[in-house]
């Protein structure tokens, strides 16, 4: 009875509000992106530990240990501070980045062996982060204006039913022509992303595993697995010790205090 009622409701909605509901796939994609951003907004600051495991086609493995602190920014890319613990010869190296959706990021690196902070000026968004299969642009915060969108279809995925959305980078220094993301319809979490290189062939696939909810709102995956299909290399990011709202502020993300970052 109830079911029939809602069916009729749905039917009438479809018929009568047809013109209103008739979104283009582009509008639908943008709407999904807005919802993703909106649901993940407001965490203010966070810190976590990250274990990075690099593998090559021969099966050789290499591990890096990193701590990351982030400060949420409204209307711009987030600020982040990365402190390297392993390998030991880069221990204490600290990387400060103010990411920007459409321009080159501002980046500084503190080299303890040289006891100097160096500003990096380059167009390296597309470049690999610490020799891994993750590019900077894969790790920086999600901002709506970074891409234009197109909703493709619904598809079942690990997180239930997913929207499949294509995202086209706006920044011409991006290494991709498009990304295809699988976003679950329940919580708007990203479960899988496929990356297509500048000649539009499949370059990498990123899978998200072990989502956990923090502060009853923000979902973070414990494991991100990236596979490069062209080189046979892969990188796993294993996250732990997530802490939100620990009271970080702009003074913790300052090139002048970078030396003291621990």
């Amino acid at each position, binding site marked *: 009875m109830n079911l029939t009622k809602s069916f009729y409701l749905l039917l009438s909605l479809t018929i009568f509000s047809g013109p209103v509901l008739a979104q283009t796939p582009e509008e639908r994609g943008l709407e999904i992106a807005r919802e993703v951003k909106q649901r993940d907004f407001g965490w203010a600051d966070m810190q976590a530990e990250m274990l990075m495991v*690099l*593998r*090559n*086609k*021969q099966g*050789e*493995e*290499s591990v890096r240990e990193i701590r990351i602190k982030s400060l949420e920014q409204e209307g711009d890319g987030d600020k982040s501070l990365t402190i*390297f613990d392993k*390998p*030991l*010869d*880069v221990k204490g*190296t600290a*990387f400060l980045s103010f990411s920007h959706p459409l321009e080159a990021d501002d*980046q500084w*690196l503190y*080299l*303890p*062996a*040289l006891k*100097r*902070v*160096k*500003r*990096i*000026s*380059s*167009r*390296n*968004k*597309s*470049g*690999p*982060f*610490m*020799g891994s299969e993750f*590019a900077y642009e894969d790790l920086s915060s999600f901002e709506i204006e970074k891409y234009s969108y197109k909703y493709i279809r619904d598809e079942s995925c690990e997180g239930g039913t997913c929207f499949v959305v294509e995202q086209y980078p706006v920044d011409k*220094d991006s*290494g991709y022509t498009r990304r295809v993301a699988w976003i679950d319809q329940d919580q708007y979490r990203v479960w899988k992303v496929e990356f297509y*290189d*500048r*000649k539009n*062939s499949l370059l990498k696939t990123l899978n998200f595993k072990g989502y956990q909810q923090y502060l009853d709102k923000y979902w973070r995956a414990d494991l991100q697995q990236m596979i490069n*299909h*062209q*080189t*046979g*290399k892969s990188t796993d990011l294993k996250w732990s010790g997530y802490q939100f709202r620990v009271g970080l502020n702009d003074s913790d993300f300052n090139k002048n205090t970078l030396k003291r970052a621990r």
Partner: protein
Amino acid sequence: MKEKLFAVVLRHPVLILLACLVLTVLATVGGKNLVFKSDYRVFFSEENPQLVAYESIQNIFNKSDNVAFIVIPADGDIYTPEHLQLLRQITTDAWQIPYSTRVDSIANYQHTWAEEDDMIVEDLVSEGQPLDPSALDRIREIVNTEPILLNKIASVKGQVSLVNVTVQMPMIDPVAEVPEVVARVREIQQKYMAENPGLEIKLSGIVMMNNSFAESALKDNATLIPIMFGVVVLTMLVLLRTFSGTFSTVIIIAASIAAAMGLAGWSGMFLTGPSASAPTMILTLAVADCIHILSTMFYEMRRGIAKRDALLDSLRINFQPVMLTSVTTAIGFLSMNFSDSPPFRDLGNIVAVGVMLAFLFSITLFPALLMVLPVRVRKTREEDRDWTRSLAAFVTSKRRILLPGMSVFMLLLIAFLPMNQLNDDFVKYFDTSVPFRQATDYMQDNLSGMTMMEISIDSGESSGINDPAFLKKLGVFSDWLRSQPETDHVSTLTDTLRRLNKNMHGDDQSYYRLPEDRELSAQYLLLYEMSLPYGLDLNNQLNVDKSSVRVVGTFKNLTSNELVSLEERVQNWFARNAPEYQVQTTGPNLMFAHISQRNIKSMLSGIALALVLISLLLGFALRSVRFGLISLLPNLAPAAMGFGLWYLIDGQVGLGLSVVAGMTLGIVVDDTVHFLSKYLYARRHRDADSVAAVQYAFGSVGRALWITTFVLVCGFMVLAQSSFKLNADMGFLTALTILIALVVDFLFLPPLLMVFDKTKIETPATTSQGVER
């Protein structure tokens, strides 16, 4: 059994025609599976140690297959605003080449410099950068002082530069991938050459080489096979004067080739450079069977015997020798299965099948065709009788001079054999008519050669490449390698680190040296890695663990021996100066440098086995152990003499030649079989002494041997015209060996027989079905 077969063939020729047609078509359909695999790796078996080492290095670092655009401006100056912009555009377009993972040119070279505490990393020729004379001078200055670029990407004189594209083909469908890449590469080449009159773009690199394997082989087949058919038709028309016979022979050859290639397709083989020469070889070898059957038949018909009876007689007489020679030829080709290089195994198997098919067709389809077609013979003078007779007279009268004379001559030639040098320079597999060869020669003359050696040095500990002791030795080694006379370019991590150290100290030139602190070096590298854009990272030089580095040396085009000796010098350098590190030297050139030696070793056992089998067959056929043994000399000597003569002609033995001895063994045996069987027939059944028997043998098979040798030599000489040197050399030396074999059979074997065969031969009882019949 065979009588029944002949009866059926001659009674129901149409039926046989149809049956053969159906079977041939069924086999030929398999040809649709036959595709060309354009990859130099096909030359190596999966267990080849050099290939295994190379593949593992490629898995640890990145693959280094490449396409090199050699861009030559009309005015001979690459440092003009227009040309630099052009290089920039080509670089951008090159990213669109399928499977490209990296593009290097002077335009996108990641130039680093310091500005106070800023480390600036940007394209050497960046977008929108004003290219005024001072900017041009700066770019020229940077290129000319940067060891990464100089002599590799840009020439010292500044008249040519490369856009080098690294390509990682997934190798899921190599048959389609290489042409796909090449099509796009040529599109870019054509586009820029059309838009910029006077600009020249040449194409080199491993991918272009792979493509040339296919293109030159296919081009060969399109020209050489028709030429060879022409030679066969002409020879037969002139020497045998028969249209129907010639036509039928052409049908037999075509059916043998089509069915053999079709069966190769059914068996799942790929075509490769060497195996693509199979049709020409089958064509050449199949002719002999038909000539033997035709000439006996005509001989009988001239004596007034009806066509059908003449044909039956011919089949009876020739069945055994044709079968025997086909089997021995097939065994010779099957010996190529011992080759370490799969394409030669395929070639051997395809030709062996083709030869056996040709035998089957020539005793079924061939007589059936001759029955259906009109065959007339003109009464002709037997003009050549005198020719063979005078040769026989000469050989018998001069035998006391000929035997020692020929022995000395043979030994002399054989003495040159060990002086041949093994050499496989894959660039020279292609003659100078092939665009890839032209481009690579140009590159060698103006930039650097295509000979490369990848040297991976393992420090043995995680992050160990940052150890100052390791870096110091790496630096010394790189300088040592650079100072070798054959070196054009060395790509090494120490150049990058020296530059970074300088950048980190405000571009102070006195800091252009290696960091002396492990942390410093690790942190420089981290900084550098973090500033590089997509596709221009250090992954092609460092492994993920930073425990190994890869140094790539580029050298002038070297012979295999020179390269192997350079490899030894490199290994010795490390044994003496840095024994604590694990060093591996690999690369396509080194793989080819070792392959001939490996292949010759593996072929030796194949040849030995073939020799044993063939000798056993001969012993049975001749029903004499003694003559089986005597036949060893004229069977083995021609190949050895051929290689001796080859030293005087060329002196470089490569992969293609390493299979010639096995291949020719089965062919040259035929002459000996025919000659010896006629000789023995005369000795046993005509009570002739050795001199008279020699004269009889000359009289009955001299002309046939001469004609078949002529056809064989022509056929392999046609193959020798191939633009693919591997096949050309193989064809030439085979032709040479076959010709020598005839000389040996005519001038050495008879005197040998007359000297060693003085005892009266025991007449075997009534069983008179020798080979000779």
